[in-house]
């Protein structure tokens, strides 16, 4: 399989503080890749750097195009949907308006967009019930569903997911990960998932990278890493 995203020597910093020290990784077309690591290791920063939300340098190839100098808005336009940590809900707008916004980067074809919104509601009936409610009043799980649905409205080629389990109860987290697995299977959308819950992420992903203070320290097939004692040790200390 070819890589839909290929990252070479990516560096990023917040002002003076250098957070990424030249990392390399790939996401396979149609596959799910996960980035694992402790708090502050640079996982979210990687996603933000990919989308041009912070200063970065290095080479980022998406779908055989060099996007390393492209502004965020344009990267979205060519099919990268980023679901930020904390979900990035437009909290005072309604659920439906949030979904409309997801299609903002697409040509304004009313019928297509309306039909995509209907599909989203079929997939997430909970969202349909809440379509006219302010998105900020939704529960954490519903907001995460909304964030995924909003990303789907782009008809993306690649989804970047930042901590989909953040603040969700185990059952809901499980549900969200099942949805992601279904989506990947049905639509073939490639995914890059950043996650603290290593076990869940490794179940979903086929490939994994382990990141520590801004450098990648290990990579491999998800199943292999899952069974690796040393990785487990750095997660639970045993």
């Amino acid at each position, binding site marked *: 399989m070819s890589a839909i995203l290929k990252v070479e020597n990516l560096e990023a910093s917040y002002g*003076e*503080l250098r*957070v990424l020290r030249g990392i390399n990784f790939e996401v396979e077309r149609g596959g799910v890749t996960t980035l694992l690591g*402790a*708090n*502050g*290791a640079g996982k979210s920063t990687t996603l933000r750097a990919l989308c041009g939300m912070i200063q970065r340098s290095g080479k980022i190839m998406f779908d055989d195009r060099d996007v390393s100098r492209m502004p965020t808005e344009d990267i979205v336009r060519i099919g990268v949907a980023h679901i930020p940590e904390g979900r990035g809900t437009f909290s005072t707008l309604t659920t439906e308006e949030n979904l409309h916004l997801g299609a903002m980067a697409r040509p304004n074809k009313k019928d297509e967009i309306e039909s995509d919104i209907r599909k989203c509601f079929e997939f997430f009936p909970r969202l349909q019930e809440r379509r006219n409610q302010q998105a900020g009043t939704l529960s*954490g799980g519903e907001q995460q569903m909304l964030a995924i649905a909003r990303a789907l409205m782009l008809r993306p080629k690649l989804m970047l997911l930042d*901590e989909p*389990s*953040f*603040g*969700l*109860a*185990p059952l809901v987290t*499980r549900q969200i990960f099942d949805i992601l697995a279904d989506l990947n299977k049905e639509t073939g959308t490639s995914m890059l998932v950043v996650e*603290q*819950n*290593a*076990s*869940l992420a490794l*179940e979903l992903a086929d490939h994994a990278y382990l990141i*520590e*203070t801004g450098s990648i320290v290990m990579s491999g097939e998800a199943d292999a890493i899952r069974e690796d004692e040393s990785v487990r*040790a*750095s*997660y*639970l*200390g*045993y």
Partner: protein
Amino acid sequence: MVGAKGQTPVISIQGVTVKFGGIVALDSVEFDILDGEILGLIGPNGAGKTTLFNCLSRLYTPTSGNIAFMGESILGQPAHRIAGLGIGRTFQNVASFANLSVRDNVRIGAHSDTRSNPLFDALWLPSVRREERKIDEVTADLIGWLGLEDVAELPVGGLPFGTQKRVELARALASHPKLLLLDEPACGLNHDEVSELGTLIKRIRDERGVTVLLVEHHMSLVMSVSDRVVVLNFGEKIAEGTPDEVQKNPEVVAAYLGDGH
């Protein structure tokens, strides 16, 4: 509990509940931190660690429950009195006074341990000079103890992250706290730096006699330095005990690794 018998709690968290709107961030959490121990507080993202931390430093007020420090409730005290009572803290992503020098940052740490008033300060009266000497001594001592002499006169904002973290520690220790709250001190450090941090935390307890509450994601750090560990998940305490006991607790394993394990 290890070595807990007969020791007095420095701080006692009694049935603390915090609700934001309809969301329960902490649900009747209860535990003690004993004199001279290092207590690790862990839990997955969103478990309520930071909320509890903010209750202890009085940035939040619990919806119900009580927090007693040295036997007295702190809930009636405003946030700025907490340092004066003897509770110091550091911040997750360092919160230094970026434009001020390392020395001034540490001096400000001694604020709650000293007295002055603006009028006397402007006139630089003898009492002010005495107090300043006291502050300077404490500051110089800590700067030496933490090896910050070379950067003492530089503005903190331009220093490397790891150094800023030590300035924060020096600043927190300058008021001679009884209890030190560390909010994810390992965040953003690499392997070697984390193990140095572990040594430093033990030194703070051993050499400075400070009780430590360590809120942390980094398992191996928590497990290697803590005397006891408390585990939170979804706002509830799910385990408490020695690092060994906690690591074997099936609920903890499930919380961290998912039900599959």
